[in-house]
């Protein structure tokens, strides 16, 4: 069984947020209202944070894209009382909306702020994209689920793409990648099987110094960064 992971090269990231927008489109994430923004209730599966060090003129800004880390020792999986968040055999941590009881314990326990709560039922128009892909009819229901209020959601590594790719015997990591990886204009993101020494991600991990976010917590994230 493969172990899916992502490598993000911070040297290449330009902070354009294309990954964030692609994620919204791919996963039909409601865009939220101005009020949601003000109250910090907008739904984010992927975000690019900017971190500054020092003061002008001796300063430095780093851009860190942060999807869900799909931790091997995921605190959200440990604390979820309803088995709504669980780790699949391929290592992807997913959220089952039907099981989620809305206690939000996972949001408190997530060290990466990767989770968002649905504070309301979204209006129909908040979901519908202007440019549905041509093959939308043939897709599974997943990429366009209508969430209900009262459930938590987060990045899924676009598992619907991976599952479909495996069914169609495609090369995952090369032909089939998550939406954020596909759109990245500077190819900062790479996706693939961490267990396969031949995969591009494994090769990248061997090529440079690497780090993970908040490694000291021992969550073993499967999103790995290559520093600038």
């Amino acid at each position, binding site marked *: 069984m493969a172990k899916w992971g992502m490598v993000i090269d911070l040297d290449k990231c330009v902070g354009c947020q294309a990954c964030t927008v692609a994620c919204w489109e791919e996963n039909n994430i409601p865009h939220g209202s101005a009020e949601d923004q003000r*109250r*910090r*209730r*907008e*739904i*984010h599966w992927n*975000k690019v*944070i*900017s*971190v*500054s*060090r020092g003061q002008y003129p001796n300063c430095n*800004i*780093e851009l*860190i894209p*942060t999807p869900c880390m799909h931790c091997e020792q995921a*605190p959200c*999986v*440990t*604390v*979820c*009382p*309803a*088995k709504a968040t669980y780790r699949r055999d391929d290592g992807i941590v997913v959220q089952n909306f039907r*099981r*989620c*009881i*809305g*206690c*939000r*314990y996972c*949001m*408190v*326990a*997530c*060290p*990466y*702020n990767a*989770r*968002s*709560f*649905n*504070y*309301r*039922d979204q209006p129909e128009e908040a979901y519908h994209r202007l440019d549905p892909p041509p093959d939308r009819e043939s897709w599974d229901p997943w990429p366009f689920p209508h969430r*209900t*209020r*009262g459930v938590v959601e987060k990045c899924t590594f676009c598992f619907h793409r991976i599952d479909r790719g495996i069914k169609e015997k495609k090369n995952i990591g090369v032909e089939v990648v998550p939406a954020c990886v596909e759109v990245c204009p500077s190819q900062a993101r790479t996706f693939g099987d961490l267990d396969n020494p031949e995969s591009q991600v494994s090769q990248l991990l061997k090529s440079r110094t690497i780090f993970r*976010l*908040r490694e000291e*917590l021992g969550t073993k994230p499967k999103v790995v960064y290559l520093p600038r």
Partner: protein
Amino acid sequence: METRYTTIEGKSKGYQILIGFLGAMVGILIISFMVLYFEGQQVWGNSNVIPWGQLITLDIYFIGLSAGAIIISSLCYVFKREEYKPIGRLAVFLGLLLMMGAMLSVLMDLGRPEKFWRLFMYFYLNNMTSLFAVNGIFYTGYILLMLVYLWLILENRMAQAAIVGTVDVLWAIAVHMGTGAIFGLIGNREILFSPIKPFEFLAAALSSGTALIILALAVTYTFTRRKIEPALIVSLGKLLSMIIVVLSVMVFVDKATHMYFPNREGTVYLFTGNYWWLFWVFQIGMGILIPLALLVYPRTGRTVRGVVLASLFVVLGVLGERAALVIPGTAHPQPIYPGHIEGIWGAPGIFFITPWETLLTLGVVSFVGLFFVLGLKYLEILPEQG
């Protein structure tokens, strides 16, 4: 001397007005719940940054009060101290009602209470590594034990009540330590993470529980024109002062441990951030310093009025203590990456006080109050003449 218990008449105008008011507040509880149910939690003040708000604060506060009340009841039914007889039934009855209030508030907090049954599918559909699920066992058992305990003492079956009481007291300790562990084991949030948190919760439960019993005793005795025994109140006051000292040691050790090592950003935020007043004014001022001063100073500590006032401060202070855990505990931005995180991702969260959430909270408090007042009329809770 045999203590005989009785019901109150409940025919006075004041009683009827109180029932009417609390009933109206329970009506408001139902309305605010319907608003929540159909509109979603957008009508509340929490956010993706501060996921838990007023209802969770009230939930852990009520669980603490309940555990404290049950532990105090053991003075009467387990340790057989005659002088505490007048508070025995009151403490057990309040313990039961407060726990039911706590369960009601957590149910409301879910927003979709029809889904909560999954929590109780032990080892089958739920995840027993979650402290919520573990506490589900504690809470269910606790309510059942309290029902049996109350029934036994109302039936005057003291030998059996002593056995059930002992189990219930041990269970109450587990209940509240388990509740503390919900927060204390969250390793990624500095303000919450602490191995001492379950013990701190227990000390806070005892102090708020004792204070509530003193307050309930003073209020019910005054309104039912019973004579308050000053010696009883003063001795409970002494007990309260000792518990507050234990609590303050717990709080000091917890915060000092976090402050000692340079990695202290979260604790500094708690002390000086936008919710500094929850910690300094409520938790430290009203929960520890003012009541301790009132209880230790002989001119107030040995009078009923002084002890009751100190208890009022403790009850409010511990509520603030719970809020100082739930709200700043998550409002502090997590250090995802070393350096200063710019924009909203690095800004501390802000909790909004909204009308529907506040009404719901007050409604849950009134629900407990209503059943307490009704209980005094239909159950033999109070001694015949104090």
